[in-house]
């Protein structure tokens, strides 16, 4: 009897000490008067790790530049980053922790729409402005008036590739391969199909897969039998790399098309020659002659010793748009920042001119690039909204 009681007591003590720990961590990072705390959550590990890491590096670079030039009205920016391992439920927990324990005034994140959608309701509930650098699913900013983004949205990205397939590639028949586990992929596929059929094309085969799958030959064999001119694969880079290899193994010659989810150096590492020649829509291109772009690329190279991908540029822009709103706000309170974010107009960013519309989305052009090799993407065309 006593033995059992003792056991139960130890269990209770163990449990309470476990739940207490994080809160002491939280108070350790509480702000002092000369700092503005900004939270960031992203997939630093997991199967989309390069998304989180690139975005994080872009944000860090922006904050460093601002702090080196005196900060915001005399206050320095401090970034608190949390890893969500690429899981929506972890993203929600991370944002909860950033807001309630670290007391941040604004949140930056996420890349993947599924994770932004998991975290946005929490930011909205606490009335903390959240700026997503590159979640393109329309639902993200529909969560509430505190949720913003600095990228274009899926209807636009889907139509860009549909236009490109119909007008530049002169494709008549396309097949679509969707990742059914991802809101982003399903959204892109839907808008691509609508636009492509509007333009007189035909979708001859629609296949689906789930992220983490490794074998796609069944879907590809079915697609091959339908003889499409192009295959639209709006997925993320790990699966796309494998899909391209297996398509090559089956002797499929159709052009592969995709969205900004392809943008990672892992795409070529996994896909090798099979992915060369594929086209995808992106937020910017390193081949741009624009001064702002070239300055960003050289600053990024100095800091991290590599060429920034599109997501790094988006992270940088998200941070800069937030900084711009903070500068215009009289006090760095969440409400004031939100109000200023909503009135952002013609902000000159690396990825183009950003204007936040009444739905808190950014209107800006997209570029189409072609995969040429490891981290080599050739500029093909720009498509305006």
């Amino acid at each position, binding site marked *: 009897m006593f033995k059992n009681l003792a056991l139960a007591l130890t269990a209770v003590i163990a449990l309470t000490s476990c739940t207490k720990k994080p809160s002491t961590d939280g108070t350790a990072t509480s702000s002092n008067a000369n700092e503005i705390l900004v939270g960031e959550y992203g997939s630093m*590990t*997991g*199967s989309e*790790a*390069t998304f989180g890491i690139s975005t994080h590096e872009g944000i860090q670079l922006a904050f460093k530049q601002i702090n080196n030039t005196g900060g915001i009205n005399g206050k320095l920016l401090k970034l608190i980053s949390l890893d969500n*391992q690429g899981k929506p439920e972890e993203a929600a927990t991370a944002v909860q922790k950033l807001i309630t324990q670290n007391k941040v005034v604004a949140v930056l994140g996420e890349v993947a729409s599924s994770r932004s959608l998991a975290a946005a309701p929490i930011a909205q509930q606490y009335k903390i402005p959240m700026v997503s650098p590159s979640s393109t699913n329309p639902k993200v900013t529909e969560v509430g008036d505190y949720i913003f983004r600095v990228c274009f949205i899926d209807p636009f990205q889907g139509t860009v590739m549909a236009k490109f397939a119909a007008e530049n590639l002169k494709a008549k028949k396309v097949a679509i391969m969707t990742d*059914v586990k991802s809101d982003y992929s399903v959204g892109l596929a839907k808008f691509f199909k609508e636009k492509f059929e509007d333009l007189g094309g035909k979708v001859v085969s629609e*296949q*689906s*897969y*789930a992220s*983490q*799958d*490794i*074998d796609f*030959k*069944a*879907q590809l*064999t*079915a697609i*091959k*039998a339908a003889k499409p001119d192009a295959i639209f694969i709006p997925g993320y880079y*790990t699966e796309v*790399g*494998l899909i391209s*290899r297996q398509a090559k*193994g*089956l*002797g499929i010659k159709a052009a592969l098309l995709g969205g900004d989810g392809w943008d990672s150096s*892992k795409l070529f*590492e*996994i896909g*090798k020659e099979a992915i060369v020649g594929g086209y995808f829509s992106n937020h910017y291109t390193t081949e741009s002659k624009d001064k702002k772009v070239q300055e960003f690329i050289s600053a990024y190279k100095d800091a991290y010793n590599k060429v920034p991908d599109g997501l790094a540029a988006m992270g940088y822009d998200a941070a800069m748009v937030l900084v711009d709103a903070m500068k215009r706000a009289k006090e760095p309170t969440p409400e004031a920042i939100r109000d200023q974010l909503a009135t952002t107009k013609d902000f000159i960013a690396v990825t183009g001119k950003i204007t936040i519309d009444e739905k808190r989305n950014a209107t800006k052009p997209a570029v189409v690039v072609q995969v040429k090799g490891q981290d080599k993407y050739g500029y093909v065309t720009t498509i305006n909204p």
Partner: protein
Amino acid sequence: MEEFIQHLINGLSLGSIYALIALGYTMVYGILQLINFAHSDVYMMGAFIGLYSSRFLGIQEKPGLLSFISVLFISMVGCSIVGFLIERLAYRPLRGAPKLNALITAIGVSLFLQYSGQIVFGATPQSFPNILEDADLLALGGVHLTLFDVTIFMTTLSLMLILRYIINSTKLGKAMRAVSYNGQWASLMGIPVNKIISMTFIIGSALAAAGGILVGMKYPKIEPLMGTMIGLKAFVAAVLGGIGNISGAVLGAMIMGIAEEFVVGYGASTYRDALAFGILILILLFRPAGILGKLNVEKV
């Protein structure tokens, strides 16, 4: 017709991969009546040992038969050691305990390997080195048969035959069967039971390593959690064929591979994983011992 044949080839190739892993499950079960859930994570270790050894040897971009065989050999030896240690440290202390304890320990070992893998190797998927160049062996009409498909299929078949030979025709195999029949009696007859069980794990883990390398070559994306889904499916395949039966594991795996391929190719691609577990439920309902398994009625 072309599409049908291509689906069949794809299915056999996928089935051989399931078979490679199912063989390890079925062998350990046949001898110890233990479902070794850590088996699919030993397979993951095999892929990672392959990755690091090829980097160490500096042959990650030098495809060739020599690179392939040396990486395969190192990985099989490495995994044998891992398998031996798992048995020695986790399962042997529980030899006398109820079977449920060993089963739960197996799940624990599996999680231990997965999450320490995430710490040591990182959770980010890595691309597997190019140690053997894939090529079209046959491109007839629209049907493509690649070198990897054939290699994997042949490896699976030959490993199955070797295993059958070991178990049915060697002294070691005779001892294994004796241990499987009754461990206590076997030890009374002078059979070193612990040594035989260690050997079982060593052979099983070497098989898993071969699986890891072959899958890494065919689907060059490896990560610490890569064993979970494929391990579950291989387990279902082993149950389908009759767990404990070597040929049954291969047969079950082929059926699974082909069935999956046709469901995805001709029907709904979303139901791929549901199919595998649907088959498991049906088998357990109508033929609990599997296709080739014999049902032993336990007498009290």
